[in-house]
């Protein structure tokens, strides 16, 4: 049966992982391939690499990262951050990424989603949405540029439209919950999963094993993503999977 995915997210700057794993003895905690291999052995179902390199001139280093990681680690790899065009997406896929996420550029030009889906298939187009609650408003506000720029878009509406345009998956981050470790924004997840039939990755707010299960059971997510929690060893992927299994959510056992 189809299992719920547990996904660590790694931030990459200039080809190096920042905030690398700090709790195990790894020769080089900044090396993307070494960390990918570590998380593969931990039972990660997929990996997300987010390129946070500020300058677009230096973005090509990300292509090398994807090349190296995909030559060593044979699980799906999603790459995001700074993807502006169909060509950007094509380069990442060719380098070995399974999926590519778009965020700011898709808000600026929603046709990008359609264009990429037609060329490469919906299955590799992930729409990343950073959302924040607004007082007195029924929908969350979409932010772009790493959460720095507010937009006119409502998150639920944008999620529905993104899926209609051809996004094959949604990666929804609650900016309110992110870093708080008080749980994912279940209401946000549920509002989206109720209306969209593409898979949904929950992001932002995980602090304990129950939060992951809640995002799936109550939020309708298909996958759960976390970063620091895994990197600092607060929780291991095996802990999350053991709890999910206990409460009856199917997971792929760690080999």
């Amino acid at each position, binding site marked *: 049966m189809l299992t*719920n*995915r547990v996904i660590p997210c790694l931030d990459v700057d200039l080809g190096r992982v920042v905030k690398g794993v700090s709790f195990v003895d790894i020769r080089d905690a900044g090396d993307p391939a070494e960390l990918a291999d570590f998380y593969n052995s931990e039972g990660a179902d997929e990996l997300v690499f987010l390129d946070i390199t500020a300058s677009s001139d230096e973005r090509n280093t990300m292509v090398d990262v994807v090349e190296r990681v995909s*030559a060593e680690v*044979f*699980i799906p790899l999603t790459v995001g951050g700074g993807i502006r065009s169909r060509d950007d997406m094509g380069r990442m896929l060719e380098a070995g990424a399974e999926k590519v996420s778009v965020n700011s550029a898709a808000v600026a030009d929603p046709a990008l989603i359609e264009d990429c889906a037609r060329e490469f*298939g919906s*299955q590799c187009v992930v729409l990343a949405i950073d959302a924040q609650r607004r007082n007195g408003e029924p929908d969350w506000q979409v932010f772009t540029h790493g959460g720095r720029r507010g937009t006119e878009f409502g998150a639920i509406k944008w999620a529905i439209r993104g899926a209609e345009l051809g996004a094959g998956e949604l990666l929804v981050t609650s900016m309110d919950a992110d870093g708080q470790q008080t749980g994912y924004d279940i209401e946000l997840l549920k509002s989206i999963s109720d209306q969209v*039939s593409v898979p949904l990755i929950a992001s932002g707010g995980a602090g304990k094993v129950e939060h992951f299960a809640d995002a799936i059971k109550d939020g309708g997510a298909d996958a759960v993503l976390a970063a620091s929690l895994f990197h600092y060893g607060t929780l291991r992927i095996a802990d999350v999977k053991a709890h999910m299994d206990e409460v009856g959510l199917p997971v792929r056992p760690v080999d």
Partner: protein
Amino acid sequence: MSEFRLAIINTGAANIHSVEKAVRVAGGDPVVTTSADVISNAHAAILPGVGANDAVMRQLIDRELPDTIREFADSGRPLLCVCLGMQILFESSEEGELPGLGILRGDVVRFPVDSKTADGTRLKVPHMGWNTVHFLDDEVARHPAFEGIPQDTFFYFVHSYHCRAKDPGDVAATSPHGIEVCAAVVHDNIVGTQFHPEKSGRSGLEIYAKFLDFAQRTK
């Protein structure tokens, strides 16, 4: 090993390099090619694919490869087809206008939109993630590429369309996603997987290794 010629048919699909890397790790030395001559002279071939039916069929037609692939399939030499590579073996697809290669009888259709699974939850499309694969033959009767793979091993899937073989004997394995999805086909020398062995960790690499081993033995 040096004279064993393995061709990965370049369908222009994005996962071609992942397939090549996985085949190398599994011990193969493939040539990624669009050349009809190279394919025709290979001892075994792999037909990968992701993306959209018409995009891949258009690439093959532009390079005059459909007949080359049909002849290769008819020749009895081992052919492994992955994901969209398996789907285009069939006669037609709802995903596009262009007919498939018609090597296997049957068609490719979309998962029903807004349908529910047995437990009443909404069926997610694409079918994306790690799912169990159930082989329909017991281990002894299986194709060598699948020999010894435990029942219900997890493999990585990502697809919105699924194959409906006209001849039930072509279906080698299924996976549950609302319906019993055709997860693998075997027809004489032709093997296909809907899942991605190149993204399925150790179990996936094992399939490439077993296919290579079989292909080298039958050379």
